[in-house]
């Protein structure tokens, strides 16, 4: 599958403008008509360290990062070049080049800043490796070009100019993008840097084989991250209140909502901690707003308490959980799917909630909307569980996809006229938590409405909300609340298409995954089928209520199934077996928890280990055979 594709990696230190440069590069490729996908890798520090962004461009939709890459722009770590006295920075000066070589494909291109690195700085075997791998090395004094027309910081632009020249990418895309985003006084020197760098390419040799793919988009495309899609899904579903506390990677959704909500007639609140954040969202929701909060694993732990309160008081609540590698504060900027059980089961008692795990940018949008619809329709917390990978990956999507009507419907909520007709206790109090209602949902009133007063309590309560330990009432209320989960299951079965089937329907072997790894598995399935393997995939994006019917029929149809997930304790496989109560001997696991998402090749090898009993030899991932194997 490495055929006609470009995977450009830009590497440097945090704070070197890697992110913004790569975003512009991605947009340029998109405007050039290509399908694009970015993968971000960055350390938990503000400046310096080793950061890279990979941009993959193809002539057909890209669902995943690739295996390795073929063009490296190594900028150097500016922070390492200006060390403070006596501070220790290790070998960070050479890192952007040396740290990235292992994944560079044969025949690849290396552009590095010779203004930063002399040939002497390079390790002794660099030349050997370059020769052995047929790498085409372009040392360019990017810093000098930048300084000549502007400031050293513009070396990114110089690097982009060189890359564009080597790959034959039209400069006008970059010129336009720079013009759109920069004030004149910065734009002019940047343009000079870009053009100068581009001209220098003419003097270099061009004997590499890398070609830019060609494509033209039929429909207008937009470039969005998973975080964009979650925020936009919430806005379109009429969410007008958010409360939160910053935590990577949830912060991206939070800051986007902070940016847009005031203009949309809403309120965004940064508060003292995550308990407060979720409690504010509950208060706002109770008072009649569509509200959300969210966090990452550590902050979500604090929300366990308000989460249970929302469920017991039947206050609609949408929480976003952006998982990162745990335990505890773990690896803040690295992806993992280790929070699944945390999200499914946290909070005391027989707690229930709805959990969605979007697989990609489109699902991040649709499932966030679905989360609001379910939360407000059924008065239950709904959680969107995604991870650091999906949070920051940029993909192109048809602009048409977002041409959706907003949904300001508050769900199962009465107007004052309806309240007047609704059931009231003999005392005149509105029966907010009425026992006998279809599907368990007893419509609510909103404070300030005439005739609707009731008490919402986290204690067990009667239909009008009074605290009660009466056994009969207890059982009736528990049953009604549980009944909602069954109604939601039916609703999702009937209306949701969030399970993705991929490959040959009649295949003997299966791969199952959930959330952000789906695209990678799809690509692995393509490759396996091209190699003659009889395999299909089920990507699960509705986690609770668990899509029993879909998963059962999939697993019944295959002889063996590999479950792919980013954690050590096989949480998704465990959930599947818990929900279905069988299939243990059919399920083997492929696990990865080193801080990086799966590459398609790892999944390919994991699958081969499943069916051929071959040794799985990777340091990056672990294969766990089926029980009894």
């Amino acid at each position, binding site marked *: 599958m490495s055929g006609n594709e470009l995977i450009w990696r830009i590497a440097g230190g945090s704070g070197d403008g890697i992110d913004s440069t790569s975003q512009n590069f991605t947009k340029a490729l998109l405007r050039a008509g290509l399908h694009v996908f970015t993968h971000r890798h960055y350390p938990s520090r503000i400046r310096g360290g080793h950061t890279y962004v990979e941009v993959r461009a193809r002539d057909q939709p890209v669902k995943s990062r690739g295996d390795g890459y073929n063009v490296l722009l190594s900028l150097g770590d500016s922070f390492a070049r200006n060390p403070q006295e006596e501070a220790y920075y290790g070998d960070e000066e050479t890192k952007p080049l040396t740290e990235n070589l292992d994944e560079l494909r044969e025949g690849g291109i290396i552009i590095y800043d010779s203004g930063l690195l002399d040939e002497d700085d390079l390790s002794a075997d660099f030349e050997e490796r370059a020769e052995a791998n047929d790498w085409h090395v372009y040392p360019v004094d990017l810093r000098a070009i930048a300084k000549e027309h502007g400031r050293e910081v513009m070396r990114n632009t110089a690097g982009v100019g060189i890359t564009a020249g080597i790959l034959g990418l039209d400069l006008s895309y970059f010129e336009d993008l720079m013009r759109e985003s920069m004030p004149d006084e910065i734009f002019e020197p940047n343009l000079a840097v870009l053009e100068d760098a581009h001209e220098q390419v003419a003097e270099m040799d061009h004997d590499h084989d890398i070609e830019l793919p060609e494509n033209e988009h039929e429909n207008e495309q937009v*470039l969005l991250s998973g975080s964009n899609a979650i925020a936009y899904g919430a806005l379109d579903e009429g969410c007008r209140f958010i409360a939160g506390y910053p935590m990577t990677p949830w912060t991206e959704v939070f800051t986007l909502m902070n940016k847009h909500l005031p203009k949309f007639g809403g309120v965004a609140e940064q508060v003292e901690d995550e308990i407060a954040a979720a409690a504010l969202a509950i208060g706002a929701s109770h008072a009649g707003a569509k509200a959300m909060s969210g966090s990452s694993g550590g902050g979500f732990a604090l929300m366990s308490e308000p989460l249970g309160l929302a469920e017991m008081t039947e206050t609609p609540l949408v929480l976003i959980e952006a998982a990162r590698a745990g335990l505890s504060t773990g690896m803040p900027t690295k992806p993992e799917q280790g929070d699944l059980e945390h999200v499914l089961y946290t909070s005391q008692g027989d707690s229930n909630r709805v959990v969605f795990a979007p697989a990609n940018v489109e699902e991040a949008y649709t499932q966030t909307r679905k989360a609001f619809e379910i939360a407000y329709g059924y008065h239950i917390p709904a959680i969107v569980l995604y991870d650091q990978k999906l949070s920051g990956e940029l993909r192109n999507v048809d602009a048409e996809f977002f041409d959706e009507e907003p949904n300001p419907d508050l769900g199962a909520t009465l107007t004052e006229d309806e309240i007047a007709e609704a059931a009231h206790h003999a005392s005149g109090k509105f029966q907010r938590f009425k026992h006998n209602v279809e599907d368990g949902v007893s419509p609510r009133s909103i404070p300030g409405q005439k005739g609707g007063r009731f008490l919402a309590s986290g204690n067990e309560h009667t239909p009008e909300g009074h605290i009660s330990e009466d056994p009969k009432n207890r059982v009736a209320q528990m049953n009604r609340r549980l009944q909602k989960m069954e109604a939601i299951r039916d609703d999702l079965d009937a209306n949701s298409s969030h399970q993705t089937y991929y490959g040959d329907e009649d295949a003997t072997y299966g791969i199952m995954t959930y959330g952000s790894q789906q695209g990678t598995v799809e690509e692995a399935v393509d490759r396996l089928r091209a190699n003659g393997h009889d395999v299909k995939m089920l990507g699960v994006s509705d986690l609770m209520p668990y899509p029993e019917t879909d998963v059962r029929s999939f697993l019944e149809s295959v002889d063996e199934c590999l479950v792919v997930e980013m954690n050590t304790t096989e949480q998704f496989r465990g959930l599947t077996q818990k929900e279905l109560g069988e299939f243990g001997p059919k399920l083997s696991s492929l696990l990865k928890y080193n801080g990086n998402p799966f590459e398609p090749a790892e999944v390919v090898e994991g699958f081969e280990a499943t069916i051929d009993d071959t040794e799985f030899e990777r340091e990056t991932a672990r294969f766990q055979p089926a029980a009894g194997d």
Partner: protein
Amino acid sequence: MSAFNAIGQNREVDQNEFTPEIEPQATWCPGCGDFGVLKALKGAAAELGLDPEEILLVTGIGCSGKLSSYFESYGFHSIHGRSLPLARGAKLANPKLTVIAAGGDGDGYGIGGNHFMHTARENHDMTYIVFNNEIFGLTKGQTSPTSPKGHKSKTQLEGSAKDPLRPLSMSLSAGASYVARTAAVNPNQAKEIIVEAIQHDGFSHVDFLTQCPTWNKDAKQYVPYVDIQQSEEYDFDITDRREAGEAMYETESALYEGKVLTGRYYKDENRKDYQTEKLDRGSMPEQPIAEQYFDEDHEWKRSHDLLDAHK
């Protein structure tokens, strides 16, 4: 027509309207100071002509948390220490509601201390009543943040080694714009103070001394009390932060020597409440969020309007 017709009628209201028609049997002990808070709150709400359905009363957990069961209005009996963030969310979603939060000294000054500090700092327009009986009541008599130093309990067998918290000084320094202390034994003053607190635009903190006859037998019963406004010893300007702070500091210390002073301590009418601050900055909508969903003419923006930046 508004979707919230209970709000803003300002009609003649009898305080019995705040008594549930079928009154749940109060589980407070005989002689409990909490009855005094309930009575004062009913009296104040009636005096202000508030409709029971325009009030959202948010309570925490503990004996104090049961207030929302015995007071007829929209209520939210939440979780220990979290009444304030919940109340803040509700007020931001619909600033037209009269939002009152209540809890105990353990609830508000202990587990909810962080929220207390930040709600005061932000100066949300709401009233916060803290039932301060210097003890954990419902969990049967443990030492609380306001229990005096040396207080013996099952969790402080040798007597507490901690200085008690100074709630008035704390809320003043955090930024509350109305701070008062009253006591269940002084029903007239209690009602007047709650009236003022609800009327005040900004965060009103009322430290309400409530005796606990069951678990805090050693504690003073807040009698005799002195109204600080009537005291010759304390002559200070309640609009002056520094003078108020000094008076608070002295009386908070004196409380533990059996000298009970209640009354108004601080009132800042110039400071804008949080909702107004946000409104001025354009980070709060003119039309309450809650109303938007019931307004058929409301224009709903959508994400499609934001896509230009993504092309």
